[in-house]
């Protein structure tokens, strides 16, 4: 057989991402344990936190329910993202990542497909959690348009955190380690304005809490859904928080996307 120059084959970046995302989505949808985790886990946190902290914390005119629900939506979905880290280690262990790595597609497409599919499942969680939020007394005070922007913002933020978990999964090596490493994110979400006003924390902790992405994210959703009373309570207009949470999301995708893809490339 004569050696003809090997033509570079391979699908477009778009097709690669879609095909990979489809694999992951089918996996979740056809594995009841995974599907029900995405459906119920966030709701459980939501109901528990709403009633444990409800009434214990004053949140000015905003009211605690309208204060805490945006925090629970943002952080509950971040916690749920840990499943993505475990999923990656399973696919690596099964050899699926080796197979995908030997195909003429960019490494980044494999990870992007995962991030998109997991974000799609998170969107499903967000829908379920939103419905339950209204059932436990949450109300929107600033119009439907702003509420939809808030939802879109949560999706963007969750997508960004998927890259954190994908990278952690690739570094962890096995499911148990992935679980352990991603647990670091839990205390991280607590040191924020998600559950309690930042002013109630000691000074040194306030400095961290005020500037970390979860706080901007939560407060963006709060001001978009809570309207004027939320803006008064938090001291800034919605645009202030929205801008910062979008910038944080972009930075997270860029940093963890780069680290994660480099890790996958190295094999």
């Amino acid at each position, binding site marked *: *057989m*004569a*050696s003809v120059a*090997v*033509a*570079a*084959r*391979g*699908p477009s970046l778009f*097709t*690669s991402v879609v*095909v*990979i995302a*489809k*694999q992951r989505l*089918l*996996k979740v949808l*056809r*594995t009841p344990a995974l599907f029900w985790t995405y459906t119920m886990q966030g709701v459980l946190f939501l109901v528990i936190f709403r009633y444990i902290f409800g009434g214990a914390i004053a949140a000015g005119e905003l009211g605690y329910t309208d204060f805490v629900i945006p925090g629970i939506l943002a952080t509950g979905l971040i916690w749920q993202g840990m499943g993505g880290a475990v999923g990656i280690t399973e696919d690596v*262990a*099964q*050899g*699926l990542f*080796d*197979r*995908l*790595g*030997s*195909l*003429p*597609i960019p490494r980044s497409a494999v990870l992007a497909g995962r991030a998109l599919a997991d974000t799609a499942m998170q969107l499903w969680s967000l829908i379920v959690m939103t419905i339950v939020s209204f059932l436990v007394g949450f109300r929107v005070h600033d119009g439907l348009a702003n509420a939809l922007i808030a939802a879109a913002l949560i999706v963007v933020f969750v997508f960004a955190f998927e890259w954190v978990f994908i990278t952690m999964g690739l570094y962890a090596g096995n499911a148990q380690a992935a679980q352990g490493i991603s647990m670091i994110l839990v205390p991280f979400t607590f040191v924020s304005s998600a559950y309690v006003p930042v002013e109630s924390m000691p000074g040194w902790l306030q400095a961290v809490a005020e500037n970390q992405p979860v706080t901007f994210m939560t407060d963006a959703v709060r001001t978009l859904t809570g309207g004027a009373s939320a803006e008064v309570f938090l001291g800034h207009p919605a645009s202030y928080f929205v801008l910062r949470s979008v910038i944080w999301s972009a930075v997270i995708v860029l940093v963890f996307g780069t680290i994660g893809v480099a890790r996958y490339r*190295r*094999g």
Partner: protein
Amino acid sequence: MFEPVIEGVGVVKRFGKTVALDGLDLVVGHGSILAVLGPNGAGKTTFVRCVATLIKPDGGKLRVFGHDVVQEPHLVRSSIGLAGQFAAVEEAMTGRENLEMVARLFGQDRASTKANVDLVLEQMGLIEDADRLVREYSGGMRRKLDLGASLVGTPRLLLLDEPTTGVDPRSRIDLWDAIRTLVGRGTNVLLTTQYLDEADHLADQIVIIDRGKSIAHGTPTELKKRTGRNVIEVHVRDREDVAEAAKVFAEFGDGDLQTDASTCQVAVVVNGGTEQVSRALHLLQAAAIAVDDIALRPPRLDEAFLELTGHELQERSSDGRVAGLKNASSPDSIKA
């Protein structure tokens, strides 16, 4: 111009302090099955992963169809298919969906995806189970699907990393048939294995690697002849005589001695030919050991391996049997 399928010169790969590939030289020509044979930890899988562009060599040159694996990984990936040690298929998808996924990722359009997937399903004998979830597949079916997934992109080089490890004997023969059919159609195959019978049955070229280096290569027949020695094998009538016969052979032979009490068999490597058989018989008679049969034969591949490397391909326990569950599916290598 004829570029070799794979051309490796002094390939080095380290993992921390461990040297997995220590200047490996290896060339694969066109239209052949090359088996890379070696014990666990010899560097077989590391080499396949380098060829598949999953890891980058630390030194040396490695080209696939003339394309450097580090400089032009995309061109290498366009021409290979990989089936690894673990059946790399998605359990939550059907067999057909798995193959479609890989075909699409090779850049095939919907029409050729469908045509190729149907063809591969048929070749692998999986048509009837094509629309069942892989979760419900047996281990052998998963391996076949995995092999199919490596084929569906119509690669010019197929990389099979221990394709039958842990597979039951029946499925093993099925897989061998499938691999042979492929080669008939002109696909180049690089196969790693720790089973001598597998290399013997499938390969037309064998490279023996040990501790990250290539220590011998040639056709199976050449490698067996390489040692220039023969093996005398005797079956004694009474099991009690096995130890006694072994003692006689130990003094008289020129190399490795193997005994198997369960089959009343003793074998030893000797220099020379038929004249040694009569000497052996004479000595056994002198020791009053009754013999059922005695034979002179060229060494099997495992014996050649021992001669070439100075150590065994697989762990052998004291009664001469090959240890390890994996070998249960490999009757040829147990008989020793």
